[in-house]
Every structure is written in structure tokens, then in C-alpha cells.
């Protein structure tokens, strides 16, 4: 029994051990890795992926997928920038409606939420596979971003937003605070609320969940909505970091988010996984990216390395499940 417990503990800690070994290896190969500024840099960089990947975790836990998060991130970021920079002018009323940084952020989150809800609505109302529905949203949101920005970055958004992306609060970068709050909220939601348990139940066995009285469509709608809103928070962070909304922001971010979820131990077939695991997965990807840059590895090889890590994570996960 003790041996079984130890095996289970080892399995649960696999990602954490992998992260530790990766850090150790890179620290041995590069003396810059363990410097304070570099570690803050890594945390700052992964904070965007953490926000997106937390939403992706909820979706994957329900055995779904959301390929649109990168594009939703770009559109929401552009909306945030556009609201802050341009506001709305009503010439006939001689009225200008401006938005503060808070207004821009809330506007972006609302847009992300609405796009996510639209994904959920298409998936539940028309029984479209999530892969297809969110793939469609990927191009729709990217197109909307191009239309809204006219293909040109929206820049110079002021010191308020710049602080969100580059500022420090109590010695910790603001984006790290934001991702930390996101993680804590969603760890609580997934572990301690009925809504969280419903997500696991739907991913574990949708039919059984339905028969036990769970309103599956409503939960799916909410989860896709939340995934969109979290992508929007990621969009705000990216826009704030650059002090500019780039029309091509967030390209392939969905792949990094899915990678973080899978490496963190969440099963793509749903029902198994955790938000904390995803955070470790995102950290592994962030450390890997940072380490490969520090070691002067070509960006092309970086892509290969990332792919191999994802593949290994899935294979190990499959083997674990077979043993269990």
C-alpha cells in the first residue's frame, strides 16, 4: 500500500521533477540562468501563457479544445488599446466618450468573454466539434483584429497600461501578480466549487454527467466563455508589455497553451488534470524557451525541442494511465 502511495505521489510530481531537472540542467550549462533578473524575466514571459492555459485547462478537462485563444487574445488586446487610445467620438452630440485603463481592460475582457460564449454557443447549439468551431473562431477573430487595427499596430497607450505590462508591485512584476491571481481563483473554482466538479464530471463521462442532472450545455457555455475571457487577460498583458496592440499578436499561442496543459498532466480525453499542473507545464515551456535562448540554440531547433517535450509528456502520460 505504501509502495502504491509512493508511486502515485511520484506520478503526480512528475512534471515538478521534470521542471526541477530542466532548471538544474540549464543552470549547469548557463551561468546567466539563475540570475534574479533572468528568473523574473521567465516568470514575466510565462504569465501570458499561464492565463491562457488556465482557461484551456478547463476546456480540456471537459474533453474539449479551444484553438481560438491566440486570435481572441489579439482582438481583445486591440480592443483594449483602441478604447484607451481612441474612445468614441459622437460629433452630432459634441461628445467624446473616453476609457481609462480600467475601462480598456474591462472592455477587452468583455469582448473575450463574448467570443468565448459564441464558441460555446456554436458547440452546444449546433453540436459542432470544438476543434472545428474554435478553428473557425481562430480565423474570425484574427480577421476582426485586422479589420479593427487596419493591419497597423495601435501604439503609445500611456504609462497606465505600460505599468500593467512592465511595472513592479511589492518587488514582483505586475504581470506575475495578475497570473498568480488568475491561478488562485481558478484553483479554487476547479477544486472547491460545484461548477469545478461539474467540469470534471463532464470530461470523465458526459453521458453519466447528463443523467445525474448536470446542465451540460450551460457548463460548456460558461467554460468556453471563461477561456475567452482569460485569453483576453492574456491579450491585455501582451498589449501592456509592448505598450502597443499588434495585429499579429498571439500567433500560435494556442499551441503553447495546449502544450502547457498536456505537459502539466491534463488528459486530452478529459476528466483528469489540474490548474496547478498546467502552471508547472507553462513553467517548463517558459524555462525551456529561456534556456534554449541562453544556450544560443537556433530558433528552429527550439521549435523541435518543444515538440519533442510535448510528445514525451503525452507518451509518459499514456504509459502512466495504462499502468494505473
Amino acid at each position: 500500500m505504501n509502495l502504491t502511495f509512493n508511486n502515485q505521489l511520484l506520478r503526480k510530481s512528475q512534471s515538478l521533477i521534470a521542471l526541477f531537472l530542466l532548471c538544474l540542467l540549464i543552470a549547469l550549462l548557463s551561468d546567466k540562468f539563475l540570475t534574479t533578473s533572468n528568473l523574473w524575466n521567465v516568470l514575466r514571459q510565462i504569465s501570458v501563457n499561464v492565463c491562457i492555459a488556465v482557461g484551456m485547462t478547463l476546456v480540456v478537462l471537459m474533453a474539449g479544445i479551444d484553438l481560438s485563444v491566440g486570435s481572441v487574445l489579439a482582438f481583445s488586446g486591440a480592443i483594449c488599446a483602441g478604447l484607451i487610445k481612441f474612445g468614441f467620438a459622437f460629433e452630432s452630440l459634441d461628445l467624446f466618450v473616453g476609457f481609462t485603463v480600467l475601462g480598456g481592460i474591462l472592455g477587452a475582457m468583455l469582448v473575450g468573454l463574448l467570443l468565448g460564449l459564441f464558441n460555446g454557443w456554436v458547440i452546444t447549439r449546433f453540436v459542432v466539434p470544438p476543434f472545428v468551431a474554435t478553428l473557425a473562431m481562430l480565423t474570425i477573430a484574427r480577421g476582426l483584429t485586422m479589420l479593427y487595427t487596419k493591419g497597423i499596430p495601435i501604439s503609445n497607450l500611456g504609462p497606465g497600461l505600460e505599468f500593467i505590462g512592465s511595472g513592479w508591485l511589492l518587488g514582483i512584476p505586475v504581470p506575475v501578480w495578475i497570473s498568480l491571481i488568475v491561478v488562485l481563483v481558478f484553483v479554487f473554482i476547479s477544486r472547491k466549487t460545484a461548477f469545478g466538479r461539474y467540469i470534471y464530471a463532464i470530461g470523465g463521462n458526459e453521458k453519466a454527467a447528463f443523467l445525474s442532472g448536470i446542465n451540460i450545455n450551460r457548463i460548456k457555455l460558461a467554460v468556453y466563455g471563461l477561456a475567452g475571457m482569460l485569453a483576453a487577460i492574456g491579450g491585455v498583458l501582451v498589449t501592456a508589455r509592448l505598450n502597443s496592440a499588434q495585429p499579429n499578436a498571439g500567433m500560435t499561442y494556442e499551441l503553447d497553451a495546449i502544450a502547457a496543459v498536456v505537459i502539466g498532466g491534463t488528459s486530452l480525453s478529459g476528466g483528469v488534470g489540474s490548474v496547478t499542473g498546467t502552471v508547472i507545464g507553462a513553467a517548463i515551456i517558459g524555462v525551456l524557451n529561456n534556456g534554449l535562448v541562453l544556450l544560443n540554440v537556433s530558433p528552429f531547433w527550439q521549435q523541435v525541442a518543444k515538440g519533442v517535450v510535448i510528445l514525451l509528456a503525452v507518451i509518459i502520460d499514456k504509459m502512466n494511465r495504462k499502468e494505473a
Partner: protein
Amino acid sequence: MKPYQYGLLFLAFLLLGYNSVYFEKLSDRQAGAEADFDYGAYADSLYYQGMLQEVAAVELATLLADIRNDADAAFKNYGNRLGIGNSAYFMVKGSGVITGITEDAIRLQAAGVGDVGINTRYIFGNALRDASGLVKLTDFKTNAEFNRVSEALNALVRTKVMPPLIDALETGDSIAVVGAVKLSKKALDDPALMITPAQIIPQ
């Protein structure tokens, strides 16, 4: 939900809304904007009086030959950069025959140089501002203001100067070009030359 919870929620929305939106008279705002520093006018004077009249562009062939001879000296003599680093911007000129025109760029067979690209669509970044050497970071209070100069200068070249010139060009035409290139001391072996144009002159 209990009634007091609805009340709290309403108050929270009210508080967020109050701190999110502000209202101004449009006419007041427009008057205020006019009183602010006019980056468009600054970019106009920078381009027409500065770049076209004061900046001495180096022949691209000369620059490349000098770099091959003594890169440090060539970077020092012709290059402009804001801080330390291996890269610098150069204001160059050259002439040749157009070998291809795409939506984004012109390919030019430049005399004494070979194949060179001229960016015609994505005129962004700080290449023109920095290659000109006319604007100093210390002239502005913040990086954001400094970058707005690039934004205005790029917009002028991208939207006003280039379109009528580019529309008239065809493959096989001979042109002269003045523009900015970025070169890095670390990548001088066969650099892919892409000029951010300031001026294209049909010949």
C-alpha cells in the same frame, strides 16, 4: 441570490463603470489636441527639410566596400545608432533596374551591389528616424514620445510619399532610391539588404 447581494453587485458595477469611462466635450478635446505637440507637422519638416535636403546618404556600393575593408570604421563614419550594440542604421542611396514588384516590396538589381529589396508596404520601426541621425532621444521626455516621431515619419512616407511613386513603377524600369538599411556587424557575410525607402526617383 439575496436582495442585498444584488445591491452589492449593482454598487460594484457602478464603481467599475465610474472608474472606466469619462466624458468630454468633443470640441474641447479637439482644441486641446491641436495645442499639443504636432507630430505630423514635425514629421513633415523632418522629411522635407531634413531628410531630403540635409542628410547625406552614402552610396550603397561604397558602404558595402568600406565595410568589407574595415567594418568598424564604416559603421563609425556612416552609421547611426542610439546606444551600444552591433547594429546600426545607414542612410543609403543606389540605383538600378527593377526585377520584380510584389505587394510588399520591389526587387532591384542595383549597380555594383546586386539584388536589393525595397520595402514598399511595411514601413514601420525606427529605421528612417535613426538612419537620418536628425532626431535625438534626449529631445523628448519619454521613449513613447520619441517613438511617435517614427510613427509619424513612417506614416508620412507609407501613406503620402510612396503610393503615387510605386503605382507608376513597372518591372524593367530604372530607378534611384534613397532609404535606410539596418546592418549588424555580426551578420555582414552576404547580408540580405532590405531598404526602407525615403525616396524613389524614376530615371
